[in-house]
């Protein structure tokens, strides 16, 4: 522990990463405590969800005993923490399947969807933003503004259903829903990424407007640099910090919360898993997913912070 905090031949970035990872432990523990307690306070008994519409008190009592739900809360929490320490997230009350396997099976699909949405957002959003900034008030700028309005104001389920109706049912270009090759990915990724495209386009535009009017851009132009290099290398690079912030936050949000998109497009990812688990009061599944998703969020934030340094050498981690 002591050797983690200071340099001694280690690069400051490594020290920073280690410090942040250590800090993540109490954060995740806090998440765990809150998730655990909230679920016991919230109405809805997992055993009631298991037995369905018709049951009897004796069966319910037996199941409660079998699942150790009658143990005092601290004892239950202790068991749970001990399991986590062994890397065991427990088994689902409803399906009897190990939570870890369920997450491993579903997370890559959520990652794929979030990754595709971010890719679309970056390419379309940044491009739109850059071109809008180059000619403020021009055709592309106005188009970009319209896209931004629509993307930010329309809720994802509405956009999703609209895409299905237009591109799948009416035009037959793409399948309406399901999981498979790239054809199945386009519509959900676009629906999910709409908000980011819109946000990034506006963000990039304003950051680019700032940096395009900066002295170093004028200098670059004055020394006869080609316009493409001026915009791409000098102006855009300096506009990257806010863009990375938005990307990082949105990516984190997509990885942890593409519930509506996954539901509408029947995408078998982690979002739907969590919703089902909540509907059925499957405590171990909810707790395991919340813990896992929090860890993902922490990790994405860390990567974002590291990316700042890559984009802007002035960012300092000492």
């Amino acid at each position: 522990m002591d050797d983690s905090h200071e340099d001694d031949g280690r690069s400051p970035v490594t020290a920073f990463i280690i410090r942040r990872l250590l800090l993540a432990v109490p954060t995740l523990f806090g998440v765990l405590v809150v998730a655990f307690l909230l679920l016991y306070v919230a109405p809805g008994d997992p055993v009631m969800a298991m037995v369905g519409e018709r049951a009897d008190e004796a069966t319910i009592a037996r199941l409660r005993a079998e699942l150790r739900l009658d143990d005092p809360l601290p004892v239950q929490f202790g068991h749970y923490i001990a399991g986590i320490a062994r890397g065991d997230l427990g088994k689902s009350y409803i399906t009897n399947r190990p939570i870890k396997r369920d997450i491993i099976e579903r997370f890559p699909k959520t990652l794929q969807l979030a990754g595709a949405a971010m890719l679309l957002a970056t390419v379309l959003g940044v491009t739109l933003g850059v071109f809008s900034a180059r000619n403020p008030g021009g055709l592309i700028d106005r188009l970009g503004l319209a896209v931004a309005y629509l993307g930010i104001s329309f809720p994802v389920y509405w956009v999703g259903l609209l895409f299905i109706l237009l591109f799948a049912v009416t035009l037959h270009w793409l399948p309406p829903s399901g999981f498979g090759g790239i054809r199945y990915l386009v519509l959900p990724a676009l629906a999910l990424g709409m908000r980011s495209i819109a946000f990034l386009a506006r963000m990039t535009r304003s950051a680019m407007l700032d940096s395009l009017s900066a002295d170093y851009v004028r200098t670059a132009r004055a020394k006869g640099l080609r316009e493409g290099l001026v915009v791409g290398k000098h102006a855009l690079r300096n506009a990257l910090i806010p863009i990375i912030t938005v990307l990082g936050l949105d990516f984190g949000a997509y990885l942890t919360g593409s519930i509506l998109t996954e539901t509408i497009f029947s995408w078998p990812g982690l979002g739907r898993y969590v919703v089902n688990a909540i509907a059925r009061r499957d405590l171990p599944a909810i707790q395991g997913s919340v813990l896992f998703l929090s860890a993902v969020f922490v990790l994405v934030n860390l990567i974002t912070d590291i990316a700042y340094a890559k984009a802007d050498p002035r960012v300092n981690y000492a």
Partner: protein
Amino acid sequence: MRCLIAICLGLLLSGCGGEGDGANRRTLVDSRDNYDPRSLDPALSTDVPTGRAVAYLFDGLTRFTPDAKVVPALATSWDVSADGTVYTFHLRRGVKFTDGTPFVARQVATSWQRVLDPKIKGGRGWPLYPIKGAREFADGKTRTVEGISTPNDSTVVVTLKEPFAIFPKLLAMPVASIAPDHMPANFGENPVGTGPWKLVEWKHDDYLLFSPNADYWGGAPKADSLKARIIAEPSTAVAEFESGNVDVLQIPQGDIRAWEEDAERKKLLASTPSLELVYVAINTTRGPLKDIRVRQAINHAIDRRVLVRNLIAGRGDLAAGVIPSSLPGSDKTRIGYQFDTLRARKLLADAGYPNGIDVELWTSTTPIYVRIAETLQGYLALAGIRAKIVQRESAAAREAARKGQTDLFVKDWYADYPDAENFLYPLLHSANKGVGGNVSFYSNPQYDSLVTLSRREQDETKRVALYTQADELAFREAPMVFLYFYSELNAIQPWIGGFVPPVIFNGQPWTTVTKTTAGHR
């Protein structure tokens, strides 16, 4: 330029498509499951998607036909002792599980013991509780179930605690299906049964794929394969159906009118008298609701005809009692509570509430029930009943009702087996208060004894007469608002032959369903 790119992209994507054409697809595709099955282990089948899949993979001693008749399956026949307590089931010979294991009587005993075993964590032992010693086994007091014996490989003798004439109907429920006694590890995902289909793969939250069991005793399925897709969002299922990617679609209750009024879509519809009662449980132990007159007033306050017409496009039989009209025991001459606001007000005044009453009207967030609750609120107000709508997510709402914390609760009840007992006993017998299904907390010794007698009665005519009497009593005492029996509506693609939507959810094994030649699109 941008337009050009969009067009090119479109052409590119449409060029590599082709699977949208449903008539050329060889797999049958179902879209009715809206969440992933719990497991494929019959002992865990407590919900609809699970039960449906279990019915493809396994057989019980009996099974349901699509029109809800109970017919022999793994048992070819059975004898009942004169006192109605001993059932001798003669088993089908030469049946094999899909792994080659022969089906023998012993497996009936082991399968049912698993259902009752708390370690399996299934939670649905009640269909087997009529068997002598079943509860004791479930409580861990005995090592075997006293009432099940297997004198030879093709005979199972079941002794019941007391006569229960409809017992063979309960054995067609998915939970009573027969599994082999030596199970592969992880049986819930690697099921081995005697059913018409075999599991090919299960992609969680995506689909289950089945292939025909060529050796199925009842004749192998005619189609190449069957895919049960898991589609959470009803609008998405509709889009898949309209794109020709799925063959069967359950029409959401709120969308009925849109389908019936469209000439093209209307041709694809198939109506089924499903055994589903939509009602409002009145908690008979709370405040003014203890008074029969108040409960009758609530029933009189509502114009069910308008409600059924406007909310579900008329697809409901108005209920006058809890027994659906397609089941023996329903009294078709009984006239339901008529919409009469003045009479409702008078009943309330007679009960001592001339200024009306205040009640909480609970509903889950299911859209159709929310709409019903809002409609009821309006009608109740006319009669001086001030209903406050309490909306909760469905697990929370159900739990509150089971704990007796709701005044009125909008809900439904699906039959698990086609018999009036499946409505009379769980919904209103005092033994089932709370978690058993009686969230009206109705308790009437006369009603209880009528229902108990009917369960024991061997003679069908006498049993049905008792059903009618019990139903009549419940109707008069109004422990619920009798709304309607819903007729389920499905859409079936024109290229599908032989699919009859089942009355009971696990009653359609798809064995005789075929795809006709390509053409319609």
